[in-house]
């Protein structure tokens, strides 16, 4: 793969707490570039190390997810010198919009999201931030984006946190359809991981909910 100059920056999409997202063109293809920016408060050596490690982790998890059949953007290129991941641009709708305007359609997709998360968990991956703003819908099917907090683990705790965060975020923003959404989600989830495992995960979700420290978590996705 060529150097940085081959990527034509088009527009700035978003400035997040950790990374900046751009739309770029590479050999005629529209891509998304996720760049982890240096933090001036960190010691420069540590800063480079942190950005490098996290970039590698995110790209690895996304690549592995793809191999497991989890719908997510395809990795095109990783540039460690600038800690940038170039990935497929997903042409689709924001799940939040569907939740707000088309509840029937949202419930149909809920089952599909359950299947998608199930595949990921079965393959030993947790996303770390499964919320509507990180779900796009293309051709009627969900695509998971932003793997910035993801990782490899088969622990029930990590997987239950995924389910918990989704439910918490739905409840804060779309309370009327949360229950039926989660029912469908769990149905799709269970069809992949099996009834017994799904039950264990949900049992843990109930435990997590009782712990105070997660109460405010879903907050960041409100509004």
């Amino acid at each position, binding site marked *: 793969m060529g150097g940085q100059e081959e990527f034509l920056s088009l527009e700035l999409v978003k400035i*997040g*707490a*950790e990374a900046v997202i751009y739309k770029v063109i590479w050999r005629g293809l529209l891509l998304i570039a996720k760049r982890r920016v240096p*933090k*001036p*408060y*960190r*010691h420069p*050596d*540590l*800063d480079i*190390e*942190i950005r490098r490690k996290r970039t590698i982790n995110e790209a690895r998890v996304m690549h592995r997810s793809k191999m497991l059949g989890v719908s997510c953007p395809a990795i095109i290129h990783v540039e460690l010198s600038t800690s940038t991941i170039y990935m497929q641009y997903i042409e689709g709708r924001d799940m939040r919009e569907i939740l707000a305007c088309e509840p029937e359609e949202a419930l149909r997709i809920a089952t599909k999201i359950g299947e998608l998360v199930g595949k990921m968990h079965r393959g030993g991956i947790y996303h*770390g*931030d499964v919320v509507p703003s990180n779900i796009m819908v293309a051709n009627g099917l969900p695509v998971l984006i932003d793997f910035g*907090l993801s990782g490899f683990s088969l622990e029930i705790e990590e997987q239950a946190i995924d389910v918990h965060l989704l439910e918490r975020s739905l409840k804060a923003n779309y309370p009327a359809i949360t229950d039926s959404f989660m029912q469908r989600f769990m149905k799709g989830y269970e069809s992949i991981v099996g009834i017994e495992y799904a039950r264990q995960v949900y049992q843990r979700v109930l435990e997590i909910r009782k712990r*105070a*420290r997660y*109460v*405010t*978590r879903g*907050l*960041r996705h409100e509004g």
Partner: protein
Amino acid sequence: MLGNSRVCLGIESTAHTIGFGIVTSDGEILSNELETYRPTSGGIHPREAAQHHAQVAHEVLRRAIQKAGISIDEIDIVAFSVGPGLGPCLRTGATIARALALRLGKPLVAVNHGIAHIEIGKLVSGGTDPLVLYVAGGNTLITAHHEGRYRIFGETLDIAAGNCLDAFGIYAGIGPMPAPELEARKGTTLHPLPVRVKGMDVSFSGLLTAAKKLVDSGVSIPDASLSITEAAYSMLVEVLERALALTMKKEIMTVGGLARSRRLREMIDEMVKLHDARQLYVRDEFLGDNGAMIAWTGLLMHMHGLTIDISQSKVRPRLRIDEEEAPWVGRKSS
């Protein structure tokens, strides 16, 4: 009573410090006296610390009253630290508080130690609605007032940041904080150590283990100290930045013993420059455990009728900051 203002005596004894502070309802700190138990070797032993507190309490209280320039009968409210903390230490302070409240015939207020750190910080720094990083030997959390109480946005998943650095210093033979930070200033080479951040939560036990291994492998103490302090502070400032982006608060305040760190303060200054926020500075005297913070919070609680019957005044070693309403915080966030 002093004029129209009420006077509260606050008793702090959650860990190695016993403190007595006297504060008025106008926010005037009349005195803030304390003594700290210093173990001859190793960590803090709860029962020995409690014995220390019991031995010196009388003298510290006498000093606090003398410096405040009042007589003991002028005290209107007695407040004590009810938790979180070490059981034997908490019970020593609580026993003194109960005895005083009974003898003086004054109301008793049970204060949440973590909330008290925040309230005294706000009082002395002039803050109104800050995002708070509370970092000490036994606590590491990020909190802000939201819908009636202090909510926890992130916290440590294992050991506290202060505990991590203290344990490292003791292991390296230089002693607890601030020794590792002072050594770090002499360091030249940074060795990358595991930085574990999960959402707005942090984890320090892996960092401690890895830093000990650095020492074992012959890395100089200044370099190992530089490596562990930079990694630990980076984690704290990163989650703080995330919480700032989420809550959109305009003020950041760091409290607790580890807030005395100059390097941590400097890093937060760098971080807030990237955002529309400012850092509040709290004087060292009010960062660590002290009696004035209990007295001031006791006053705020008393104003809202949050007194406690002696029969209900059992200490709560595992109390959390978000377990109680904080109705005196007027301004709503969100």
